[in-house]
């Protein structure tokens, strides 16, 4: 979706302002927000693509005025409601009022190291060979899907070149919506800065994205 998350090339946000010796957390609630989000994800009711889509579905004014952990928590409330784990009444009362759906699992403290070490690999074996090979000229599709996609707006309808064939990966555009993993080949595609940004572009700039096969057409 052309949501607030699709930031590449937008202007007006001001300087980057890196903080010297920045701590990992700026308030104790951020620690709990990280942990609650990971524990809730471990229930197994949604995947990483659905959670990304929940975050980018915040109203743009809300997204841009929220810190990243605030975005996480707001999206988490949406996911928990959607999957029947919390209700509006629970949230309104700040307490467990209504019964919850049954999670696939509950992450216990003793299992955390193993779960974090394992992560969630998204590569999948592919039955079909890759359509493109390194060096092939390609053009990215021009589309504006209303659902989740990982092709940023700045890289749509652009001519580039396949730099590397990666692996088969879960396709976020369907997986985010409960429509299956439908794995596709992923490629690293390089674009000249001038192809993307046109007049006035930095002539020394090359940008790459990692693109699922269905985002690409031969050029």
């Amino acid at each position, binding site marked *: 979706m052309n949501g607030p998350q699709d930031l590449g090339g937008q202007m007006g946000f001001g300087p980057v302002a890196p903080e010297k010796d920045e701590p990992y957390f700026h308030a104790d609630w951020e620690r709990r927000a990280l942990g609650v989000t990971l524990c809730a994800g471990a229930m197994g009711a949604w995947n990483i693509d659905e959670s990304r889509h929940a975050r980018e579905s915040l109203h743009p004014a809300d997204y841009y005025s929220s810190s990243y952990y605030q975005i996480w928590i707001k999206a988490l409330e949406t996911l928990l409601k959607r999957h029947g784990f919390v209700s509006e009444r629970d949230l309104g009362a*700040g307490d467990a009022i209504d019964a919850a759906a049954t999670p696939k699992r509950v992450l216990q403290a003793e299992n955390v190291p193993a779960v974090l070490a394992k*992560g969630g*690999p998204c590569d999948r074996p592919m039955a079909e060979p890759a359509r493109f090979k390194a060096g092939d000229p390609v053009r990215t599709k021009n589309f504006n899907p209303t659902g989740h996609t990982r092709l940023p707006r700045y890289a749509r309808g652009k001519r580039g070149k396949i730099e590397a064939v*990666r692996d088969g990966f879960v396709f976020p555009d369907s997986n985010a919506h409960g429509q299956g993993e439908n794995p596709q080949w992923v490629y690293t595609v390089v674009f000249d800065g001038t192809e993307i940004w046109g007049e006035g572009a930095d002539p020394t700039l090359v940008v790459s994205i990692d693109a699922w096969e269905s985002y690409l057409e031969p050029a």
Partner: protein
Amino acid sequence: MSHDHDHDNELDPFAARVRALETILTRKGLIDPAAIDVIVDTYETKIGPRNGARVVAKAWSDPAFADWLKRDATAAIESLSYTGRQGEHMQAVFNTEETHNLVVCTLCSCYPWSVLGLPPVWYKAPPYRSRAVIDPRGVLEEFGLTLPAATRIRVWDSTAELRYLVVPIRPAGTEGWSEERLAELVSRDAMIGTALAREPA
């Protein structure tokens, strides 16, 4: 006007919101608060940019490892036991005299947690995510890094599940240094691409 000095009411509204959510989920038996403690401790004390710095220092010291890291970063990094969440699929990209690499995630905040730990706020915020792909030199200037005009800049937008680690150029004057000493020269920002490796003092 009432003045309730109950501790919860001194929390800022968002802290109260997170606490309420944790309370609800805990009372429903959906999460284990002790698991949150372990997660926080892991990312606050165990996993951080020192992991990545050791990967870089080994690549500088051991050409066979550097070659492996180039071909199969996931396996090479796993051999040092740095595995896990948001590091399942790794790519290492090597700076050269001709090309400087910079990593961004314009669509969210994808970042190689297993080697760099949790991302800094600026990496997740709109100014960096919007500008890194269109004005990388301007962004690097804000980090105090001015690249030669002829240097090619390669920006890697992490749009899929590959996570990128920049391997900076080994500074001159470090011949014969141990990996441990070399790792001290490798900052988090150097492995994102917003800095170079530190020069030896």
